[in-house]
């Protein structure tokens, strides 16, 4: 069992940020980004209720099994694409090693 994984978050200015994420402490992608001082508001605290952690999955991780809550929220977000996810709903597990996501624009 690995103790950490490596992921990349690309910010809105297209700059990639390589981040080592510890496993076993139940982090989600929104928390990881916020913890690395990237511009993710995470306003609702991770309840899939604000879309401020909206991002695009750029690597070939097949993680598009969204909950109804997440789909609902994406219906209210903008710039939504087929590879859109809410960062707070992506759990940092061993399978996420090598994940690359790009932060979506936030509307007004």
């Amino acid at each position: 069992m690995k103790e950490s994984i490596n992921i990349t978050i690309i910010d809105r200015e297209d700059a990639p940020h390589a981040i080592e994420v510890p496993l076993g402490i139940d982090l989600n992608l929104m928390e990881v980004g916020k913890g690395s001082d990237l511009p993710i508001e995470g306003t609702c605290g991770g309840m899939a209720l604000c879309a401020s952690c909206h991002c695009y999955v750029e690597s070939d991780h097949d993680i598009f099994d969204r909950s109804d809550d997440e789909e609902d929220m994406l219906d209210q977000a903008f710039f939504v694409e087929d590879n859109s996810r809410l960062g707070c709903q992506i759990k940092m597990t061993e399978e996420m090693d090598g994940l690359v996501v790009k932060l979506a624009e936030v509307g007004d």
Partner: protein
Amino acid sequence: MIETDIAIVGAGPVGLFTVFEAGLLKLRCHLIDALPIPGGQCAEIYPKKPIYDIPGYPSILAGELVDNLMAQIEPFKPTFTLGERVEELERQDDGSFIITTSDGTKIKAPVVAIAAGLGCFEPRKPPLENLAQFEKKGVDYIIKDPEKFRDKKVVIAGGGDSALDWSIFLADVSSEVTLVHRRSSFRGALDSVEKVMDLAKAGKINLITEAEITGLNGNGKLDSVEITHKKEGKKKTVAVDNFIPLFGLSPKLGPIAEWGLNINKNAIEVDTLDYSTNVDGIYAIGDINTYEGKLKLILCGFHEGTLMVQSAFKRIYPDKKLSFKYTTVNGVQGFE
């Protein structure tokens, strides 16, 4: 003019509970909230979600917590201004404040407690370049009076309950209703979805899915919108009188940011001695404030409000002695 002891900006759980603690000190409160109902996020965003960290409640739904708080503060007869956003704050010569709301309501109080959570909830606006220039000239984010849309050509965008419900309602009022949604399926209440599908089949709603509004046109007043089908990239222009984007609400700090308070990352800096801000007489409690070690928890907000009213009492009655009483000993002496 409404006069009170403490004007509380924000009627979420923390603002509500502060009424109780203020009441124990015989201080009256008036609450102001941009939402039309009390409860803040708990009522507007997640009323059916359980909260597990309210002391004494292994689990309580957010909506139930609000109901309980309303019952708990009832003896202290709080008054409310709901559905209005605070706009201006003016300090008077006697040190008190007058708050003016978006509808022109004025509230005078010697103490202001900002319990505004994440800010006030405002409609999410789609990222369309010239959206602002058509606001109130064909673009509406909230439907206050549906009669405004009688015999008009209306385009609604969104896929949630409010987009569905208003499409159904306006199908009988407006001359033409077009509903545009980014996906092929809807996640609103099942019977609303079925109703919309039936109305679409009957030709009463023009349903366009997997599409979005990509442009607004008009000269001084909206006269058409551009709809782009996402998969094929096909664009078409539809003549309209009104465009109603319904993408839910998101919190904004709003005019509070202009009140001369020290703001750090959308939160108001406070002294943890009494949760006072840099402006004498203004306090900030709950999620809206920040200090070293701050946790945005309802239970922390309750604590902050409780300590804050002690300081507010001293400000309002500098010469009066305050003796601390347990409710278990004294009971709750409500107001007439």
